[in-house]
């Protein structure tokens, strides 16, 4: 054999150092600092009303974060996002797999999914309020609507993509349909499914905030609306940053699950570690 492959373990410490102190991280940090500096300068020049500078956003944060009201807002919004996302993930993956494996299901569902994919979900929120009132339910439904179509479409694509020449090979060994599904289709589709879930997670956060904005009185979206009505740009900025943090940490968690899961059974994920 001409080639030989050597595997060496990299120490935990070294790994951490590489991740935290890379050249890319340094560049990202510099860009962030520059943006903050410009923001601060413009904000001070224009005044809080037009663009609150980071310093006043920080002082707002210092005031807001310790309050019970803030945490209850955060809790309500985060619960809704999580609930809606889980429902969208389970339903979306199931429907995507169904469409990918059954031609009849694909024929029936394709037009519905295509329509759902392009509908501006925000336009549905007033209807949801009419149907479900002002409680948690309409907000969760909004999150589901925002997230589910992306998940269905990517899962469907993944399942169809996985059934290529590999399934012929495995079929030639006398594999049953169930074996084919478990051993070829699912592992082949997983990278797609996880990509869909990641996008879905980000869209779930957006869906929640849009719904709350239109509700005007609930959650972080509601707080943004109230702050904007009171011309408190510093508070608006603060809540937008909070939403961003929720979004990033949320897709971060999905990505982490993806990594942990795929590491054990999908080779392409070993490289990126």
């Amino acid at each position, binding site marked *: 054999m001409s080639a030989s492959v050597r595997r060496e373990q990299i120490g935990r410490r070294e790994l951490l150092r590489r991740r935290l102190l890379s050249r890319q991280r340094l560049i990202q940090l510099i860009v962030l600092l520059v943006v903050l500096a410009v923001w601060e300068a413009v904000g001070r020049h224009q005044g809080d009303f037009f663009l609150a500078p980071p310093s006043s956003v920080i002082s707002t944060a210092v005031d807001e974060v310790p309050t019970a009201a803030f945490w209850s807002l955060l809790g309500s919004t985060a619960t809704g996002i999580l609930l809606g996302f889980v429902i969208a993930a389970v339903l979306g993956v199931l429907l995507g797999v169904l469409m990918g494996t059954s031609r009849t299901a694909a024929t029936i569902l394709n037009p519905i999914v295509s329509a759902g994919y392009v509908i501006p979900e925000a336009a549905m929120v007033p209807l949801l309020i009419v149907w479900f009132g002002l409680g948690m339910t309409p907000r969760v439904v909004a999150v589901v609507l925002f997230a589910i179509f992306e998940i269905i479409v990517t899962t469907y694509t993944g399942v169809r993509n996985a059934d290529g020449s590999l399934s012929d090979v495995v079929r030639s060994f*006398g594999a049953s349909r169930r074996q084919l599904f478990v051993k070829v289709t699912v592992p082949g589709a997983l990278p797609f499914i996880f990509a869909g879930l990641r996008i879905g997670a980000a869209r779930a956060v957006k869906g929640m905030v849009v719904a709350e904005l239109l509700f005007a009185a609930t959650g972080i979206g509601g707080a943004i609306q109230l702050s904007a009505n009171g011309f408190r740009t510093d508070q608006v900025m603060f809540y937008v940053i909070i939403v961003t943090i929720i979004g990033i940490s949320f897709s971060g968690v999905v990505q982490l699950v993806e990594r942990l899961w795929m590491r054990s059974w999908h080779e392409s994920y070993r490289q990126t570690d």
Partner: protein
Amino acid sequence: MSPTLERRQTGSLDLSAHDLSMCFERTVGRERVLTQALQDVSFRVRAQEFVSVIGPSGCGKSTIVRIAAGLQRPTGGALRIGPNEVTGPGRETATVFQSPGLLPWRTVLDNVALPLEVAGIGKRDRAARAAEYVELVGLSGFSGHYPRELSGGMQQRVGLARALAVRPQVLLMDEPFGNLDAISRQRMQDELLRIWEHMKTTVVFITHAIDEAILLSDRVLVMGRGVVRAEVDIELPRPRSRRMLLSDERTLELMSRLEDLLGDADGTPA
């Protein structure tokens, strides 16, 4: 299930085609296009015989493998493995495809174990058996590697080990070395010769390379336009080696004869 698979001998069955026909139909615009890939093809491959099928591309030779593997039903006639007609994928045959078709998320060992897993053989048994065949194709040190870490030739070795691990009665090979570079190709031919001498299973080997067919086979079927045009016995002593064949006059004779037949097969309208 496992004891029967464990003990049985390989290559004790023959393969026979009886008036095998295959007609593909597709619609292009308002036209119905019928392609006759095979037309009343009959031949027999004896138990433990190595038969190559050569022919220009599109002559239907790959279709024979797909039918024998049970991936496609013929539109006419029958293909039998031993006494039984092939009606779907079965455990009597194993196929090595032109592209290795390895599952990228499985290690070499797990890829070789896949057909055993499908057959319901227990975890420990299949790991032991897979390891045995990984060793047979000379990849012992690479059991834990993933396909992308291997060269094309090594990947095709894994494909071969996977097929052999089934201990098939009939081994089907569809241009298995067609995608390899010349050096890997020669090595794989040598390797296949060595393994076949050792296992003596029934082999149907599809190729378009005349030298490859002569080196490996007991008999060569020349196909053209969906029919078997000629059969040529390769009466060269075994065990064979590339060097031996190069110094044997009969090799040249066979080559020019097959060359002529192949030319005829290509030129004659069906």
